[in-house]
């Protein structure tokens, strides 16, 4: 009797959370898979009988859609430029922070983490003003040193770089903390031993610091990479994918198809393409890591 009563307890604990997660996150995954093979749009939502299964038509159409192809190209651009910048800058900040005294380190950690807690719309408002071609602070500072005004958000190529700069600024905080925690956990005895052997600073950095941080680096690179493949908020709030579709990303394409054109089936199909790209990129990373370890 008592035993039976006890068995209900765990379900009381997990029940509410699991139920909500199932309805609002797990079921949508299955639903996304189903609707990506249909022509579901706004009419289909009003009248289910107009929904047809159209096989792989959405996926075929995607790869003939110039906007989608361009957004894949842009996303790769974001990843290739943005990930090294984001990982590199947060590593450099962490290394510098590790040199200074505790209270200085705490102070600057707060400063460098601030952008990570800041709302993306507020960031868009502030940076949009800084990037403003006529009244912006950046162009004014450039004009002081006699550089002509830069079309920060008006030129497709420069706009991509401007968004990357902003995103690196915003995202440094968490990676910095992870790197710093890893740096702090390296036993000082390693460095003392290296000193006795007469190792120089560069040798200590490449032979002790970097190898000791290999897991942190791997973790940061994988999560940063996944994050940049899903690059969405920055182009959404700053440029809405423009100019000339030059800053559109895959994630933004999905949003536009789903919520601006109400092409739910087509958008869901694009989301699976993004998912597959992320999985492939992550698997490649894991493969490289295994190789490293067997060497």
């Amino acid at each position, binding site marked *: 009797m008592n035993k039976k009563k006890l*068995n209900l307890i*765990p379900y009381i*604990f*997990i029940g*509410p*959370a*699991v139920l*909500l*997660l*199932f309805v*609002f*996150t*797990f079921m*949508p*995954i299955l639903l*996304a898979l189903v609707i990506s093979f249909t022509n579901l749009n706004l009419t289909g*939502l009003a009248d289910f009988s107009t929904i047809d299964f159209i096989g792989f038509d959405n996926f075929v159409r995607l790869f003939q859609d110039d906007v989608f192809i361009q957004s894949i190209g842009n996303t790769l651009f974001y990843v290739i430029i943005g990930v090294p910048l984001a990982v590199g800058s947060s590593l450099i900040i962490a290394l510098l922070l*590790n*040199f*200074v005294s505790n209270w*200085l380190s*705490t102070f600057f950690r*707060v*400063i460098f*983490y*601030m*952008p990570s*807690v*800041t*709302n993306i*719309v*507020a*960031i868009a*408002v*502030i940076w*949009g*003003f800084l990037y403003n071609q*006529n*009244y912006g*602070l950046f162009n*004014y500072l450039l004009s002081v040193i006699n550089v002509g005004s830069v079309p920060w958000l008006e030129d497709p190529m420069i706009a991509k770089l401007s968004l990357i700069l902003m995103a690196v*600024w915003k995202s*440094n905080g968490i990676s910095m*903390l*992870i790197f710093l*925690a890893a740096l702090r956990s390296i036993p000082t005895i390693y*460095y003392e031993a290296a000193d006795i052997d007469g190792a120089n600073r560069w040798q*200590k950095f490449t032979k002790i*610091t970097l190898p000791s941080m290999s897991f*942190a680096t791997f973790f940061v690179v994988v999560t940063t990479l*996944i994050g940049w493949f*899903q690059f969405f908020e920055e182009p959404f*709030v700053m440029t809405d994918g423009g100019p000339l579709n030059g800053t559109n990303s895959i*994630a933004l394409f*999905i*949003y536009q198809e789903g*919520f601006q054109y109400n092409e739910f089936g087509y958008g*869901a199909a694009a*989301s699976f393409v993004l*998912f597959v790209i992320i999985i492939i990129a992550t698997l490649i990373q894991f493969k490289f890591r295994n190789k490293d370890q067997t060497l």
Partner: protein
Amino acid sequence: MKLKNNFERTVVVLLLVIGGLLVSIPFIWMILSSFKREIEVISIPPTFFPVEPIFSHYIRLFTELDFGVYLVNTLIIVFFSMFGLLLNTMAGYGFGKFHFRGKEVWFSIVLVTMMIPGQVTMIPTYLIINGMGLTNTMPGIILPGLIAAFNIFLIRQFMVTIPDDLIEAARLDGAGEMRIFFRLILPLAKPIVAVQAILTFIAGWNSFIWPLIIANDQSLYTLSVGLSLLKDENATSYALQMAGSSIMVIPILIIFVIFQKYIIEGFNVSGIK
């Protein structure tokens, strides 16, 4: 690695100061601009400090614009996201400390949802909310973000480390399961729950996409959605926009500075090395 002399220490501190200034420029510029007149904000060359600081943009946000309503809605979302954290913590405890039928199945559902990018579920979640007739309602805004699989996972990892004997002893003393959870488990899990509470607060305050998708009436707008509306409707009122951004950003920065210790220590708790 340690620095050898004072010269090197000065160089490092100098680099940090320059980096810190570069990172802070957007915040400094936002706050200073919000106290300037519109005409001063777009003057060339720009002034650094406001010539004559004014507070009228902030007043206008709450009198002529609906920032009061947006603020209340944002606080409602923050409140419910805290309730969501309680549910996450309960689930983490359930998965970490109980054995029951179907545990593996349910936990793999948690893990699967953790790995799927948000864009995949965005459209179908909207369709489900639409099917429930919850579009343009507060529950529709709150429900999709209430549970975070990653939080359940993190909390579960912590719960596993709590010794079973402790819980058994409390049961032998006749404590009920809920009493054990609130009086014993929650205090023990304070380090991880504290971090999650701050991060959940920040996420709730900043939530943007779901309120934007679900809310049609301005009476349901959050601060971030209201701010994006302000950006579109008053595209050239830069000082007003900066005041709106300050309302959005400064409270969260204050909260962050007060509680930053927990966040930073939290990264050691979650054991990333």
